[in-house]
């Protein structure tokens, strides 16, 4: 049993007890504990079940590399799955539960998978479940989904808030261990701005636990001094609980600050995502210890040697009375010394190397620890927890020489530099044969916009594993970063005594000659249950590329992304392929370093701020009068204004009738309004529109079509000529920004010599349509302008004042009615709207929404961009040849429209469609023809583009594109519906109502 020691714990505040629950059980720990240390202190070694075989698992590590101790944290709006107990700071009221087990952590039915493990090797999904086909969906997948998996997905809306923070700075130093501190000090002394970030809640990394002595003082003292010095410098900022998450192009990087994970509910943002543009990035991210692959290395109680001494030194946790050390390097001896210093037993150090001496080895021997050379672990005894180890010769096949009872095993397979951030954006690695790890190749750093290196790697992350060398490397790295910014600084490093170390031995399988039975119990990837035999199987089956082997076995694919397993896994792969490790290479390191919350990525963009909603000056009135909304671009436009007790459909029908019979009011403010001015403006617009705009007279309006250079119709609207050299172009609501950009692009990239300026005035005006037979009467009541039939004709515009408000009135119509669109300054839009309502009251005026607008335009056969067009339709398809100038040499899209495909006679063309039974055709329905095509699909000959119930005509009307449509007036087409029935519709003229335009010419 693990337990709390009576004294010690450099991170603990024993005066402050903290209460928390684990699987509903009330437990206590101390301030400064992590969830993992507190659980261990309470004797809770079993912390979860593995992904595939549901094996009992305990904590292996003490930091962010932890693969096993994943927890569900919190509840309801604060529920989070897959949180590492090792990086979860304990706080009062923390609720944690273990994952991936049923019915309980101690007794798990899924464990049966483990006894079936020989039938569930790597790739078993692909092989086993492929036949019979339907079984995958209905039998295998549901079973596997239930049995495999980690945490649950949160179900409730997140109650916390998150935010982004954008900064630029000279240098970011990632990692607040002694290397990061030394590098930050060096850079800071050059005068450059420095941001130093550390993912943990304290500075110094692992140097204090490892007993480092710096400048003749214990590491803790030197760290405190360094932090104090940095805090005193104006150009330095320090941030704890902030992880370097990713390094991207040109010095852009993300840092993930866990602001309030340990103080939940205090109304601070829970996480803050720092988006940093740095001129230099120093990665001082340390190194991670590797496990050893021996049978039963996943039994709870087997831990990394470094983690064991972390728990002892930082949190006063005993892993058990007796701990056996198994190692291939000197570093693990520190664990033996730490355990002894804490009064615990170390029955033996099993060192895989044949002969070791001096340094830490000598120290261990001196205090009476039994050091066994050339030995390894044949297998771990015990299932839910360690009961002992069977000792064997490392060079043999696993014959048991002796069994040593113990409660814990501390293993060390050597150290791998954390090269992730260095590698994210192109930093290269080289293999170090003596230390058996990949370390950064300083000559191949990620580069910035100028092609120069943008990152420096220092300390253990750079493959330096001794204190003195770490500090020297960090100072030099700091000086390098400063020099790249044009600053000189002496790389003055703190000092530490040289360390004696025996060379480590590469040990990838223990014992080296282990047979299949042992290898099938050696875990490489704990979280994803990948064993030595799985990787070997993948190699045998031809998955020789490391990326293929990864995907076949799932090695390194879990939430820890193989922080512990990658090097061991690829070493086994290389060995099986009889290749060198560097030849096999690594998988790709991708951000984020550890998972970051979705909330932090979203930042403030949630709820009301999820997307900007654009509002017209009359928005509040619409809202207050029951409008139902239609999103158009980012705008919200009223779809209809149902009255109390009225359905939306009925409201739409009423709005159309009111407008056709008397007068309606439309908020048309969202229409794009772009001013185009200059000596070349006319010529420019002639190129932009298919028809002629340069001949338009001042004071007049003209409807125009705009095509892309591929000939497709992309926008339409009314153009008004304001003066000799100025035009006002109306665009569709969704088109305003796009068309403005389109204009600027042509002006800036193609016709940069033309004298034309544009300005987007969409939001300057509230634009209100006053529409219907009584429209003139309403505006005349407001008074101020002569809008009589004689003096203000169809397609005229005029400036003036209405009811004392500056107004520009356009006599244009999209409904077929007598219609005026009035543009007033946005700041007076609501006022003008209210005045219109007042003036129109005697006529029964009613506002109408976009659906009534659509019905009225469809009754008149007017096309709508986005309904009749979909990016594949040219104006000629829509019978708009009248709006294409024959006189012009060119316009954008002209040449494309002459292509063979565009000029074919069998393009589908616009017609009206009238159902025989008066019903309304389904939107998007296809007209079928006889026969089937090569794929066995029914041949089609047309489709519905717009369809409505017309209250004016009392029947369904539709527009559609039909093969040879205009030549087939009167023919009846079949439109199958999704319910299997067929609607028949007759091809008719698309203008259903008032063909001669008498209503608008009054």
């Amino acid at each position, binding site marked *: 049993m693990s337990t709390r020691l009576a004294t010690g714990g450099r991170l603990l505040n024993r005066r402050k007890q903290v209460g928390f629950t684990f699987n509903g059980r009330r437990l206590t720990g101390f301030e400064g504990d992590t969830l993992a240390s507190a659980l261990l202190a309470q004797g809770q070694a079993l912390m979860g079940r593995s992904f595939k075989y549901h094996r009992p698992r305990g904590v292996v590590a003490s930091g962010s590399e932890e693969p096993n101790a994943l927890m569900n944290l919190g509840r309801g709006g604060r529920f989070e799955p897959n949180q590492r107990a090792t990086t979860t700071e304990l706080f009062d009221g923390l609720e944690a539960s273990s994952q991936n087990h049923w019915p309980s952590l101690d007794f798990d039915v899924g464990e049966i998978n483990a006894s079936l493990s020989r039938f569930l090797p790597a790739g078993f999904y692909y092989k086993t479940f492929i036949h019979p086909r339907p079984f995958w969906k209905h039998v295998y997948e549901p079973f596997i989904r239930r049995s495999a998996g980690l945490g649950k997905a949160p179900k409730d809306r997140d109650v916390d808030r998150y935010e982004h923070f954008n900064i630029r700075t000279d240098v970011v130093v990632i990692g607040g261990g002694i290397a990061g501190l030394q590098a930050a000090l060096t850079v800071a002394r050059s005068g450059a701005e420095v941001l130093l970030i550390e993912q943990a809640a304290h500075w110094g990394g692992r140097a204090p636990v490892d007993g480092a002595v710096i400048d003749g003082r214990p590491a803790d003292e030197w760290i405190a001094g360094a932090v104090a010095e940095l805090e005193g410098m104006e150009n330095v900022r320090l941030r704890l609980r902030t992880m370097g998450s990713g390094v991207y192009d040109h010095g852009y990087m993300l840092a993930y600050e866990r602001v309030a994970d340990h103080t939940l509910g205090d109304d601070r943002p829970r996480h803050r995502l720092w988006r940093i543009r740095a001129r230099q990035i120093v990665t001082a991210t340390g190194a991670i210890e590797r496990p050893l692959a021996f049978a039963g290395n996943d039994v709870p109680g087997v831990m990394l040697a470094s983690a064991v001494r972390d728990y002892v030194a930082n949190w006063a946790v005993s892993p058990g009375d007796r701990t056996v050390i198994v190692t291939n390097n000197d570093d693990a001896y520190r664990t033996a010394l730490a355990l002894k210093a804490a009064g615990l037993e170390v029955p033996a150090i099993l060192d895989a190397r044949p002969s070791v001496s001096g340094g830490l080895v000598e120290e261990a021997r001196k205090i009476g620890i039994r050091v066994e050379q050339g030995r390894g672990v044949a297998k771990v005894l015990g299932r839910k927890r360690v009961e002992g180890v069977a000792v064997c010769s490392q060079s043999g096949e696993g014959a048991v020489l002796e069994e040593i009872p113990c409660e814990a095993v501390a293993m060390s397979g050597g150290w791998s530099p954390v090269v992730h951030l260095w590698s994210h954006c192109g930093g290269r690695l080289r293999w170090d044969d003596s230390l058996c790890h990949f370390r950064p190749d300083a000559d191949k750093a990620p580069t910035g916009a100028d092609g120069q290196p943008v990152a420096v790697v220092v300390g253990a992350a750079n493959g330096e594993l001794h204190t003195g060398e770490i500090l020297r490397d960090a100072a030099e790295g700091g000086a390098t970063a400063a020099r790249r910014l044009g600053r000189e600084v002496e790389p003055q490093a703190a000092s530490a005594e040289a360390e004696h170390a025996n060379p480590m031995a590469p040990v990838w399988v223990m014992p080296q000659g282990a047979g299949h039975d042992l290898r099938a119990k050696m875990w490489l990837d704990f979280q994803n249950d990948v064993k030595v035999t799985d990787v070997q199987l993948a190699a045998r089956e031809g998955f020789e590329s490391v990326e293929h082997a990864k995907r076949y076995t799932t090695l390194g694919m879990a939430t820890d992304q193989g922080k512990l397993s990658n090097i061991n896994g690829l070493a086994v792969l290389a060995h099986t392929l009889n290749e060198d490790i560097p030849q096999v290479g690594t998988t790709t390191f991708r951000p984020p370093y550890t998972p970051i919350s979705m909330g932090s990525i979203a930042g403030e963009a949630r709820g009301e701020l999820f997307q900007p909603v654009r*509002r017209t000056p009359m928005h509040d009135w619409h809202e207050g009068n029951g409008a139902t909304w239609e999103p158009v671009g980012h705008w919200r436009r009223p779809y209809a204004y149902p009255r109390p007790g009225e359905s939306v459909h009925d409201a739409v029908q009423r709005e159309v009738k009111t407008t056709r019979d008397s007068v309606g009011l439309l908020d048309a403010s969202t229409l794009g309004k772009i001013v185009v001015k200059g000596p070349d403006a006319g010529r420019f617009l002639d190129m932009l529109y298919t028809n002629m705009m340069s001949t338009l007279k001042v004071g007049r309006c003209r409807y125009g079509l705009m095509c892309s250079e591929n000939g497709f119709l992309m926008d339409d609207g009314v153009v008004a000529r304001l003066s000799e050299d100025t035009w006002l172009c109306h665009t569709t609501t969704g088109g305003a920004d796009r068309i403005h950009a389109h204009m600027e692009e042509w002006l800036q990239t193609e016709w940069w010599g033309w004298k034309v300026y544009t300005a987007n005035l969409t939001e300057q005006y509230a634009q209100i349509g006053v529409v219907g037979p009584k429209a003139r009467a309403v505006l005349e009541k407001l008074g101020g302008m002569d809008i009589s039939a004689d003096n203000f004709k169809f397609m005229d515009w005029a400036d003036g004042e209405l009811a004392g408000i500056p107004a520009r009135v356009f006599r244009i119509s999209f409904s077929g009615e007598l219609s005026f669109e009035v543009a007033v300054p946005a700041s007076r839009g609501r006022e003008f709207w209210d005045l219109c309502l007042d003036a129109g009251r005697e006529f029964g005026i009613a506002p109408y929404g976009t659906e009534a607008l659509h019905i009225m335009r469809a009754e008149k056969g007017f096309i709508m961009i986005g309904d009749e067009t979909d990016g594949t339709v040219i104006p000629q398809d829509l019978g708009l040849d009248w709006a294409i100038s024959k006189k012009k040499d060119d316009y954008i899209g002209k040449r494309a429209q002459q292509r063979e495909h565009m000029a074919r006679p069998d393009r589908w063309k616009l017609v009206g469609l009238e159902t025989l039974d008066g019903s309304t055709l389904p939107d998007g329905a296809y007209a079928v023809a006889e026969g089937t095509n090569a794929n066995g699909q029914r041949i089609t000959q047309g489709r519905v583009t717009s369809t409505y119930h017309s209250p004016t005509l009392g029947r369904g009307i539709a527009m559609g594109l039909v093969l040879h449509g205009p030549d087939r007036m009167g023919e009846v087409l079949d439109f199958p519906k999704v319910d299997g029935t067929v609607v028949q519709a007759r091809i008719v003229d698309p203008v259903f109502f008032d063909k001669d335009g008498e209503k608008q010419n009054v």
Partner: protein
Amino acid sequence: MSEPVSALRGESYDGHIRVEEAGLRGMITVRGDLSSEAVARAVGEVSGVEVPGPNAANASDARGLCWMSPDELLLLVPHAEAGETLRRLSDALAGEHALVVDVSDARATFRLTGAPVREVLAKLTPADVSPGVFELGAFRRTRLAQVPAAIWMRDAQTAEVVCFRSVARYMFDLLATAARPGGEVGYF
């Protein structure tokens, strides 16, 4: 009701900085060749200030000029004077190739006041708002979260944000969220 009204009628929020809609401003977009002496003279005469350099504004109170792009300026006047100013400037630029339009009502303006004003901006814009870079008189077009905006440093503790009128509500909510107590970063 016969006065022009701003989008949010001066709504305000007090967080760790104060956020308030600053009301209507007279704003006139001037597009023209800024290197042309005639254009500079006309604009200078009507505005009463020199044409500012890139990413800067020359202004006192409600009057001045803001640099928008190599061929665009924003002229500021009190809202009531926008129409008259537009006419004067149009006359002054007659014969020049230039575009002068009133955009007063197309915009919303917010004033941010308080020591951590840079922090609130840094939560929303990728632009560099550090002291020494974004100083008194600096005026930048950028984005705040998902919408375009211009930011303007008026003094050490005051910034202004100009955005399109239609997104005034979004902008206000955005700024208020960023200014909510508890979110202090303590960086600048």
